[in-house]
C-alpha cells in the first residue's frame, strides 16, 4: 500500500469546491466551486535544485465560469455552482475544458500570453492613436516578451437544452462530440455547434406520476466512441450503443445487482441510488458508487458486480439520523488510479478510502491540516464501530458529518491525488525515498 506524504495544502478561501479534475497529462488540475468559479492549478516543472519539491501545483488561472441566472418563465433561480468540469485533450498550445452548471455547458479556452506586439505605426505602445501627420517612417511590429498572462475565454456556450438539472458531462473519445445528462434526458453535442443537440436518451414517462427513477450519472466509454453508460437512482446501470438507434432508450446491457431482502429498510431506495459511475482506463470495467458501497463491474457480466467494497458500513444503523440531517442524499464520487489497480472514494469526517483491488487491502486517510503537516506521512485512520475504542480510533458518533469528501481526482499516470474537503483542496503525493 502506498505511503502518502502531505504536500502543501492548497487552501481556497472562497466557496465550497464542487468538482475536481486532472487533465489528460496531469499537468493541470481544475476545480470548480459553488460560486461558479474555476481555478486551474499547474504543476511546477521539476527542478534539479530542489528535487524534493517534486512538481508542486500552483494556481495557474482563475476565472468566473458561470453566473447566477434567473428563469423568468418558471420563477426559478439557476445556481451558478459548477457541477462538473471535463478537459478536452490538448491539440495545440491552448487548453480547453468544458464546465457546466445546472443548465448550461460552456467550452473555455485557457491560453498563455507571454509576448505582445510592439511597434505599431498607427498607435502608441500604450494604445493611443497617433496623429498620422506625425508619422515619418514605417516600422514592422515585433513580438516582445512580457510577463506571462493566462487568459480564459468562453469559446462556446451550449444552453437551452435541458429542462432538468445537468448532473454529468462526458467527452467522447472521438474528440468531436460530448454528452450532457440531466435527470431525465441525455443530449449529444458537437463541440463546434451550439444551437443544436441530439437527444439520445429520454426516460421521462408520458405521465409524470409514473416516474420511478432518474438518471444520476453518465459517461462515454474511454475508447469505444459509440458506447456510453448511464446510472439511475434505482441502482441500475445501462450500457447503450449509439449505432443501434438514434434514440438509445433501449439499452444494450443492463447491470443490476439483486437486492438483499434482509437489508430492507425505509431508506433502501435512497442508499441504492448510484451517485457516480466511472469507466476504468482500460475500458474493461466500470465502477459505481452508492451511499454505502463502491462496486466494480465487469462490462461482460450484467448479473452482479465483480467486487463490492464497503466504504462506511457502520452508517447502516444510522440511516434515520442521516435522513433527517440530509446527509443521506450526499453524492460521493469515486476514482480509479492510472493502472486501475486502486480505487478511491470519500467519506465523512474528511476521511477518504482507498481500496487495492489486487491485495484486497484498504486504508482510511484523513484530509485535514490539524492532523498532517506538510510533507508528513498520512497516518491511517480507523473508525471504531462498537465496543472498546482504542486510542487512535474515532467512534462513529464523533464523526463530523459536515466534513465530507465528495469530490476527488487521481493523476492519470502518477500517484498524486487531489481531495476536496469542503472549501479546501488537498494534494497528496507518493512518498519518494
Amino acid at each position: 500500500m502506498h505511503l502518502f506524504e502531505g504536500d502543501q495544502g492548497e487552501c481556497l478561501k472562497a466557496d465550497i469546491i464542487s468538482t475536481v479534475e486532472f487533465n489528460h497529462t496531469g499537468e493541470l488540475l481544475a476545480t470548480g466551486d459553488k460560486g461558479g468559479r474555476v481555478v486551474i492549478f499547474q504543476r511546477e516543472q521539476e527542478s534539479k535544485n530542489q528535487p524534493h519539491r517534486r512538481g508542486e501545483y500552483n494556481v495557474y488561472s482563475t476565472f468566473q465560469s458561470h453566473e447566477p441566472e434567473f428563469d423568468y418563465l418558471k420563477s426559478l433561480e439557476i445556481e451558478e455552482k459548477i457541477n462538473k468540469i471535463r478537459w478536452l485533450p490538448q491539440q495545440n498550445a491552448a487548453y480547453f475544458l468544458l464546465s457546466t452548471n445546472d443548465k448550461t455547458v460552456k467550452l473555455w479556452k485557457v491560453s498563455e500570453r507571454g509576448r505582445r506586439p510592439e511597434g505599431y505605426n498607427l498607435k502608441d505602445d500604450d494604445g493611443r492613436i497617433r496623429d498620422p501627420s506625425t508619422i515619418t517612417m514605417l516600422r514592422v511590429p515585433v513580438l516582445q516578451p512580457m510577463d506571462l498572462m493566462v487568459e480564459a475565454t468562453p469559446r462556446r456556450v451550449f444552453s437551452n437544452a435541458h429542462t432538468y438539472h445537468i448532473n454529468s458531462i462526458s467527452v467522447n473519445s472521438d474528440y468531436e462530440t460530448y454528452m450532457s445528462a440531466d435527470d431525465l434526458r441525455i443530449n449529444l453535442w458537437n463541440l463546434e455547434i451550439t444551437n443544436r443537440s441530439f437527444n439520445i436518451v429520454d426516460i421521462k414517462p408520458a405521465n409524470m406520476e409514473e416516474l420511478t427513477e432518474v438518471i444520476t450519472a453518465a459517461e462515454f466509454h474511454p475508447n469505444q466512441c459509440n458506447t456510453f453508460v448511464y446510472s439511475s437512482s434505482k441502482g441500475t446501470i445501462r450500457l447503450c450503443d449509439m449505432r443501434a438507434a438514434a434514440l438509445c432508450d433501449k439499452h444494450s446491457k443492463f447491470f443490476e445487482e439483486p437486492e438483499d431482502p434482509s437489508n430492507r429498510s425505509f431508506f433502501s431506495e435512497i442508499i441504492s441510488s448510484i451517485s457516480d459511475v466511472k469507466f476504468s482506463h482500460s475500458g474493461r470495467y466500470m465502477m459505481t458508487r452508492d451511499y454505502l458501497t463502491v462496486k466494480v463491474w465487469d462490462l461482460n457480466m450484467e448479473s452482479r458486480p465483480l467486487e463490492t467494497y464497503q466504504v462506511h458500513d457502520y452508517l447502516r444503523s444510522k440511516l434515520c439520523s442521516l435522513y433527517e440531517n440530509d446527509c443521506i442524499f450526499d453524492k460521493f464520487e469515486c476514482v480509479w488510479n492510472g493502472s486501475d489497480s486502486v480505487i478511491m472514494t470519500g467519506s465523512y469526517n474528511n476521511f477518504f478510502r482507498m481500496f487495492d483491488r489486487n491485495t484486497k487491502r484498504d486504508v482510511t486517510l484523513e484530509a485535514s491540516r490539524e492532523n498532517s503537516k506538510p510533507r508528513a506521512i498520512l497516518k491511517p485512520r480507523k473508525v471504531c464501530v462498537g465496543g472498546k475504542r482504542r486510542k487512535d480510533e474515532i467512534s462513529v458518533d464523533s464523526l463530523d458529518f459536515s466534513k465530507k469528501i465528495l469530490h476527488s481526482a487521481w493523476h492519470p499516470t502518477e500517484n498524486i491525488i487531489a481531495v476536496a474537503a469542503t472549501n479546501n483542496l488537498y494534494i497528496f503525493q507518493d512518498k519518494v525515498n
Partner: protein
Amino acid sequence: MLNAMECAVDAQSLISISLRKIHNSRTQRGGIKLHKNLLVSYVLRNARQLYMSEKYAEIYRMQQYEEVMTVCNEIQELNPLEEEVMEPASPCPSATQAVAAAEATVEELAKDPSVGTFYRSCCCAAASTNEPEEDLEEYPLNSCDFSPPACTRTTVLDLDTHVVTTVENGCLHQDCCPCQSAGSLAPAPPRKRKPDFGYDAPELPDFAPCKRARFEDFSAAVASSTVTAATESPEPSNISNLISIFGSGFTGLVSRQADTEQSLNGQFCSKQALASLGAWTRAIVAF
C-alpha cells in the same frame, strides 16, 4: 453528532419529516431537485405502508371487538327489560338512520385520535343483520373535502362484510353520483386542521396552484381491515393540494393495499406499490 439527534424511526414521524423536506424544497435555491424529491417520496411510501398496516391491524382488532359487543347487545335485546343500547354496528333499516349511525360512529371514533382520522370522510354502510343475504347498501366514500373536479371511481365500504370495492361510475362530480340518492351524505366541510408538525397554516394555501396534486383515493380502504378483498391497484383521485393532506393528518396517505398482508408481516415495501408512488411524484411536479 449522531448521538444528539433524536432519531424518529416510527412511521408517523418519518412521514412528517419527509413532507417537510418536500415543502422546503420548494423554496430552495436552484429549483426543485427532482432526484431528491423522488427519493423522499420513496421514504414516504415506505413509511405510509408501515403506518397503514399498523392501522389496519388496529382497526381489525376494533372491528372484532365491536362484533363481539354487537352479539352481546343482541342477546340483551331479547330481554325486553334491558335498555336498548344503540351500537354503531347495529342494524338500521333506513338509509338516513344508517347515515346517522355512521355519523355517530364517526363522532365516537373521532374522539380517539389515533383511529378517528380514518373515519373522517367515510360513510358507513349498514347492512341489515337480519337479512345477511341482502345486497349491501353501498355508499360512496369520496374525497369530498377536496372538491375534486372529476372522480372516475368511487370506493365503497361494507362495514358488515368489510369488503372494499371500487366502482367506476364515471361521474364528474360527487353530486352526480347515483349512489347519493341513497341518502344525503352530509359531506364534512373541508376542514383544514392545523398540521401536527409545525407548519404555518396560513402559509400553506400558497401551495394550491392551478395544477392539482393527485393522490390516492385516500378514503378508500380506510375502514377495511380485510384488504384481501380490495384487489384493485390504487388509482389516483383528485385532491386539490398538499395542504389537505397535511390537514387531514395521515388519512391522505391511506390507500388500498393489496399487499397489506405482507405489510402486516413487517415487509413493508413491495414492487406493486410503485403505482402509488406516482401520486407523490405528481405532487412534486405540481409544485
